[in-house]
């Protein structure tokens, strides 16, 4: 099973490599060459050829190795929820600013990963982002994302 997956990954990488290699022949790169024999796509083409050859190697390796069943069961629903939350965090960061988004992220993320003690959850969920924000913004003078809705945070 694992090696079948390796073959699939190899095929996927092969397709991506071929797509990128095809892109190196795009006309925009031909026009950009200014009296230099090895233009902007010389090096990426070399790299992509190696990419394709190694993807083929990975496919062959996957086909030749005997199939092994995966032993570890992964908690994928939890990972998907966490990833979606991270995506949502990045999206709202620009609007709500670091402080509000990170409190929201901290509370929900800890809940998703399995922290169920309400008092410590709320205390850390609010205090940690608040202290972090204060240290970075006011002590280290490193600007974090500011809210377009609320001024000052």
């Amino acid at each position, binding site marked *: 099973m694992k090696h079948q997956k390796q073959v699939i990954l190899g095929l996927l990488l092969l397709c991506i490599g071929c797509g990128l290699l095809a892109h190196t022949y795009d006309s925009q790169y031909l026009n*950009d*060459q200014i009296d230099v024999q090895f233009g902007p796509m010389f090096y990426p083409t070399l790299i*992509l050829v190696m990419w394709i050859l190694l993807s083929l*190697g990975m496919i062959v390796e996957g086909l030749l190795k005997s199939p092994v069943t995966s032993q570890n069961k992964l908690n994928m629903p939890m990972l998907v929820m966490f*990833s979606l939350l991270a995506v949502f965090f990045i999206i709202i960061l620009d609007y709500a600013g670091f402080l509000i988004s990170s409190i929201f992220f*901290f509370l929900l993320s800890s809940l998703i*990963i399995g922290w169920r003690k309400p008092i410590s959850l709320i205390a850390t969920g609010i205090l940690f982002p608040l202290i972090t924000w204060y240290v970075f913004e006011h002590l280290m003078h490193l600007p974090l*994302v500011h809210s377009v809705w609320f001024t000052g945070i």
Partner: protein
Amino acid sequence: MDIALINQAVIASIQWQNVVAVLIGVTWGVVVGALPGLGSVLAITMLLPFTFGMEQIPAVSMLLATYAGSVYGGSLSAIMINTPGTPQSAATCLDGYPMAQQGNADLALGWATVASVIGGLLSCCILILAAPQLAAFAVRFGPVETFALIILGLTCVASISQGSIIKGLLAAVIGLFMASVGPDPIVPSYRFTFGIFELSGGLNLIALVVGVFALSEVFSRICQVNKKGGGGIITGKGLRYPKFAEIRKRIWLAIKSALIGSGIGILPGTGAATAAFISYADAKRSSLRRDEMGHGEPDGIVAAEAANNAVTGGALVPSLALGIPGDAVTAVMLATLTIKGITPGVRLMVENPVTVYAAFMALILSNLLLPLTGWCSAKGFSRLLKTPEPLLLTAVTLFCFIGTYTVNGLIFDLWIMFFAGILGFIMRLFQIPVAALVIGLVLGPQLELSLRQGLIVTNNDFASFFSLDHPIALFLFLLTLVMLFLPLIKSYHKHK
């Protein structure tokens, strides 16, 4: 080398103002270096405004101490949470984190401290004894020689690819490709941006490293929560130094790694990450305990840490002796010198010898203070690691976001980090070494630039890269061949 000048420098550098400046610099460097994504440049630039009101020597000393502290600080998070605080410490993860997983995080930190001090001190000695001579040698390093050196660095991909060399090479090639996204280094052109303006500056290295190492680690742990007794977070117990007998066994490795680090540091533009990986690859080839490397062997930590800390001294050679900044950190240093009325360049050693030697002394003092600041930081880190896993994973994720954002102030970098995290997670699932990808990312820009500059210099004659016209390059290419084939030859003879 003038002993009287060195005496004057020693007296100047042990003034209380200077010692306090060094202590503040080291502590600040260790703290900022340990935070994923922030790094040496940020640590120094944040401290720069505070140096304006200071005297010449304390100002330069504080910045140098910050530099040394930040390189060391990166190893703390690399060992404890598999997240290199700075790209320089990426190689430390390879053995530091497995050692921490075995319950020896404190010992791993002890090894990192010992190796850092040895590396840092040795490079300072080299700096004091032979800065002008080494600087003269460094200028003989043209693009062809740099290309040969980077190829030598890439050989460490083979040594970290356990199980499948194809997967390791593929990861490195993906890293090399990702490093080529953005502006062309020779002609005015943008590559693989697909109309996305934010990609025109290239993929942010910090975002990629943080994503591939740290975020993918968070993803992996989340996947294991509630399975087989939970994710098994590392528990730290502060810092424990290895026994003297153990140090003695690895002293030559530390010295050799420090020499590699100093040598690479002298070359402008190569950097500590390159030095750490080259040194690691060399240890993997030559160490008596090479079979254990990658599974928590102290040799891996010693090789990486001695080399990356030795770069701090080495990098000052071209900066102070020739006025050539090798990287962003030394550029900030030179800017500070200029602000303080000192003109960097070939006359610096003649016109301001006491300041230069005092800077070397400050670096020695910084390295001597590393065990103290390291011990305090490790204690603090250990307390943090006692936090329950869900809260800790969330906090690490939040720090990844902050560290990445503060580099350029771009939300786009957060997306890069997120997708790099997914990529790293997939690589872990398929047992593809993520470190190989990082090696490709770190060495990629230098590899391309030196190759294309080399082709221009040699009139597009690639064969002349391997000719006697470039004896240093030829030596490095031969060394690469030896590093690649010696293990094969040895195993053949053993088999026979």
